């Protein structure tokens, strides 16, 4: 589905990724684990096109998208939920979704589907996104990504910094989405338990390099924990 090959990228003169190769299986989940500063978010930002790689290629279903702008990647079926529950704070919840649905033939149905996953957003439709709680904003962020009906979803630590009562709900939704079919997921996650439960493949990232990778599933959890504790 998505092939990141030998990616080198960073900010200005600070290289962060030193040749990272990650592959997301079709209709499957690949998770990237690693400590803070390992380059996980940079990897997703590069995959989405917010950072121009200095080397390497990005293939989406065989098409080279390395040099495409982010919105062109969205048009090809990619969606991205960045770190930190980002939203358009001065737009209402409904406007946040409408913004993405605008100009899409299936915008209405896609919005309704996304709202079915997060019913709480219906009650908050008139409220400005900046006034929502962190958990609500993260649900809005995922819903906004789903309105584009993506084939590939990039999630950057979806449960980080969110009140525990909502964490389980978001985890369940992510797992359900991944099981549904027709959607591949690249998940960046610090919680090993959740990451491995979701993963078909896992990658451990350290200082901008993949140091360990393999089949997902809870069976590999001990291996990953050991790799991360080094």
């Amino acid at each position, binding site marked *: 589905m998505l092939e990141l090959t030998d990616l080198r990228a960073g900010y200005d003169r600070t290289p962060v990724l030193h040749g990272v190769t990650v592959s997301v299986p079709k209709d499957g989940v690949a998770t990237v684990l690693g400590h803070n500063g390992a380059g996980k978010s940079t990897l997703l930002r590069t995959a989405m096109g917010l950072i121009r790689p200095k080397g390497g290629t990005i293939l989406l279903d065989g098409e080279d998208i390395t040099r495409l*702008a982010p919105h062109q990647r969205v048009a090809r079926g990619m969606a991205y939920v960045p770190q930190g529950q980002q939203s358009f704070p001065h737009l209402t919840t409904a406007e946040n979704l409408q*913004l993405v649905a605008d100009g899409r033939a299936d915008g209405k149905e896609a919005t309704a589907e996304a709202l079915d996953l997060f019913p709480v957003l219906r009650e908050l439709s008139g409220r400005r996104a900046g006034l929502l709680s962190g958990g609500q904003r993260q649900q809005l962020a995922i819903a906004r990504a789903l309105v584009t009906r993506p084939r590939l979803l990039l999630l950057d630590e979806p449960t980080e910094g969110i009140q525990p009562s909502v964490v389980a709900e978001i985890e369940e939704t992510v797992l359900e989405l991944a099981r549904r079919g027709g959607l591949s997921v690249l998940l960046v996650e610090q919680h090993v338990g959740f990451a491995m439960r979701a993963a078909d493949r896992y990658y451990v990232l350290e200082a901008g390099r993949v140091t360990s990778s393999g089949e997902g599933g809870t069976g590999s959890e001990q291996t990953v924990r050991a790799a991360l504790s080094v």
Partner: protein
Amino acid sequence: MTVVLNQSFTGISIGAVLLLIALGLTLTFGQMGVINMAHGEFIMAGAYTTYVLQKSISSAGLSLLVALPLAFLVAGAMGALLEWLLIRRLYTRPLDTLLVTWGVSLMLQQLARDVFGAPNVQTAAPDLLTGNISAGGVTFANNRLFILGLALLCVLGLTLVLRFTPLGRRIRAVVQNRDLAEVSGIATGRVDRVTFFIGSGLAGVAGVALTLVGPIGPTMGTNYIVDAFLVVVVGGIGQLRGAVITAFALGVLQSVLEYSTTVSVAKVGVLVAIVAFLQWRPQGLYTLRTRSLA
């Protein structure tokens, strides 16, 4: 009492002109953060559009009506072209943007001199707009009433576009979080260009209005551009309602000071008031941090 009312109306009509010339800047400067020194030349382009039209359409009323949308398109196209050619390459370099657009401003002034000649020209106002209406001892000049109506119409139109249309949602989204807008599938570069088109187009409309109250000349834009920037800065960057309140407040202040002193002293008084106000509230009347545009 009638003196107070008359002066208030004068102030409001000065405010209306200020509002009209500043409205486009609330988009390009306020929303996008681009200091476009050539904005005044888009005002000039709108004014010359009226002048050229009047040569082919002899009815002053009709040519004015045609000039309004045409000037919007002409100035808007110039703005979009400027954005596409130069400004989009300089978004991360505000100082260079200022210098480059200043250069463009000088070139456009010279172009106007070459095409239309250095002396100022004039357009004829339609009969309907040359008279006055008197009510309760207060005299309302028709052309001033027209400008007031036009300014309010433009504010209303811009507000509706920003608040209720897909384009408006996109403009607000790009301003609030550019990267997030881009990864949400919005072609932010195109939104920038359209925003610039509308902002510059509004300057063109202001140029049409100015032909009713003054001469048309190559440097007319520079006379208004500073006032326009002041309105946007005092109103709070990116704040439509701040610009509206500020324009009328400065207009009334100007006319009150003019009545008791002279035009120049009034100008100085207004500037001093602005400096004092910005010492107290450097962020302007409203800020995006607490309230959103439209």
